């Protein structure tokens, strides 16, 4: 297997091949629990932990399992890590565990995790696999948090409400609210809001990408001109 550069892995996970915005994997938790920042952060961290762990384990056993039993083995590994994450959340952030409910267990079925196990970890060495898992998980968690923040802000007029569920007393006073009589734009908190916000984020990413491509093209169009002018001079010198 060819060596993959860490910079490329980072770029892929966070932007170019972002699991939520480009691969559109793991949409179920993305849409279902992104109603507030604290929910999004909680599920994002859980997914990140599972993704790093499962990528490492899959990479370690990649030469021991045959193709025929590859998928069941991966699912077993992912399920074990998900159970660990679930038990940890139950122990340390019990209230958040109750709010997120079934969606923690459903990390098992998150296609982004199985996708990374199959597409990357089963073909690469442990360290790059772990970094890939971390970057993909981070990319997913960041999108989840942005969606959560936008929906919380539009829907309830607050930001970082109830952070103590995740961070303990440290995060209790983080709540920022816009105004006391914000009417509450309920559609943002309801399921349609998740689709709308995610859609707008994907559109925003595409705008940024096409703008970047346009600038790159403009730069490339400038560069050959410089070169050709230099060549004219060179030929001029020779003759």
């Amino acid at each position, binding site marked *: 297997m060819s060596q993959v550069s860490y910079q490329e892995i980072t770029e892929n996970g966070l932007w170019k091949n972002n699991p939520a915005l480009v691969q559109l994997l793991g949409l179920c938790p993305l849409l279902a629990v992104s109603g507030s920042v604290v929910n999004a952060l909680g599920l994002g961290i859980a997914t990140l932990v599972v993704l790093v762990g499962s990528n490492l384990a899959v990479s370690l056993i990649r030469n021991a399992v045959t193709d025929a039993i590859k998928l069941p083995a991966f699912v077993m590994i992912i399920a074990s890590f998900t159970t660990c994450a679930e038990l940890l959340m139950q122990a340390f952030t019990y209230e958040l565990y109750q709010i997120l409910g079934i969606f923690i267990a459903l990390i098992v079925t998150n296609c982004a995790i199985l996708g990374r196990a199959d597409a990357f970890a089963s073909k690469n060495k442990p360290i790059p696999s772990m970094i890939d898992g971390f970057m993909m998980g981070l990319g997913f968690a960041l999108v989840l948090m942005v969606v959560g923040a936008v929906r919380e802000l539009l829907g309830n007029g607050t930001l970082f409400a109830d952070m103590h569920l995740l961070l303990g007393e440290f995060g209790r006073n983080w709540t920022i609210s816009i105004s006391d009589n914000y*009417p509450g734009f309920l*559609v943002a908190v*309801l399921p349609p809001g998740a689709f*709308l916000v995610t859609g707008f984020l994907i559109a925003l990413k595409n705008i940024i990408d096409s703008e970047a491509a346009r600038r790159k093209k403009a730069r490339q169009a400038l560069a050959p001109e410089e070169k050709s002018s230099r060549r004219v001079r060179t030929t001029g010198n020779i003759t």
Partner: protein
Amino acid sequence: MSFISQSSPHAHATNSTQRVMLTVVLATIPGALAMVYFFGVGVIINLTLTIGFCLGFEAAVLYLRKRPIGFYLKDFSALVTAVLLGLALPPYSPWWMIFVGCFFAIVVAKQLYGGLGFNPFNPAMIAYVVLLISFPVQMTQWAAPVNLGDLPSISEALTKVFTGTAIDGYSGATPLDAFKQSESLTVADIYSQKPIFSEAFFAGAGWEWVNAGFLLGGLFLLWRKIFTWHAPVSMLAVLALMSIIFYDGSSESSAPVLTHLFSGATMLGAFFIITDPVSSAVSNKGRLIFGGCIGLLVFLIRHFGNYPDAVAFSVLLMNFAAPFIDYYTVPRSYGHSKPRRATEKVDV
């Protein structure tokens, strides 16, 4: 100079998008006048705000999309959306709510899909439903009609719209609200006890005339051949049939036929919303099915659901189904003995 030789018929079609849209706006006048008479100046404020916001959003998005602004504004489709939304929203709604509604109607439901002709859903109804599920308190406060109490003065109305100060005493239950909220009463009791019915001639004070106004406007549009009779007739017939079947006068009964037909948004929906040429089914048979299903859904949600009125939800649900209906109701083309199904292969 062009001398194009044309075969018959030589009839000249004068209908352009612009003309059609203006005729539709014109046809809302009787119903709108009735609303202004019964619910006061709030209706005019609503219409002014929706027209301003909708045209503004339309121009802004057209500018961002680098389309000719004047050309698309002059087809008046944004004006029709604005007028329908303004008539559908409760009078004296706060201005920011109307602003959000217009944003969703024009920017999200229409322009993001590609502008007029590409929107799968009726923009005004998208805006109405977004507002209804987002701001249920403000969206369910209808003013009481004029014969049941005073209407707010102009200054009171403007204060309410722009500062949000609540003015109590002017709002009252709509006829459909009254039916929804008095489940233990028989129909006769509701009619004698609730002022909204006891002050009415046949279907609910004020609302019967508003609906009659929209019916008049709708018949005018039908006469001008803006749309065919299929969808409205089918919707009203199914709604009437269902309310006859479920009517027995007891406390479990549905509202009487006339109340279903002449209160809430029935007539506005039947003649101005479901006849939208973009988001409805296109063949005549398809329109019969489209309208009939909307009538059925309106009745089901009104009678069994939690919401007193259901035209917006039913229209959106059937907008989803319109391409599917079109798929199975391709009409017989001239020269073929039987209609070609969209599922069959074309023999050339």
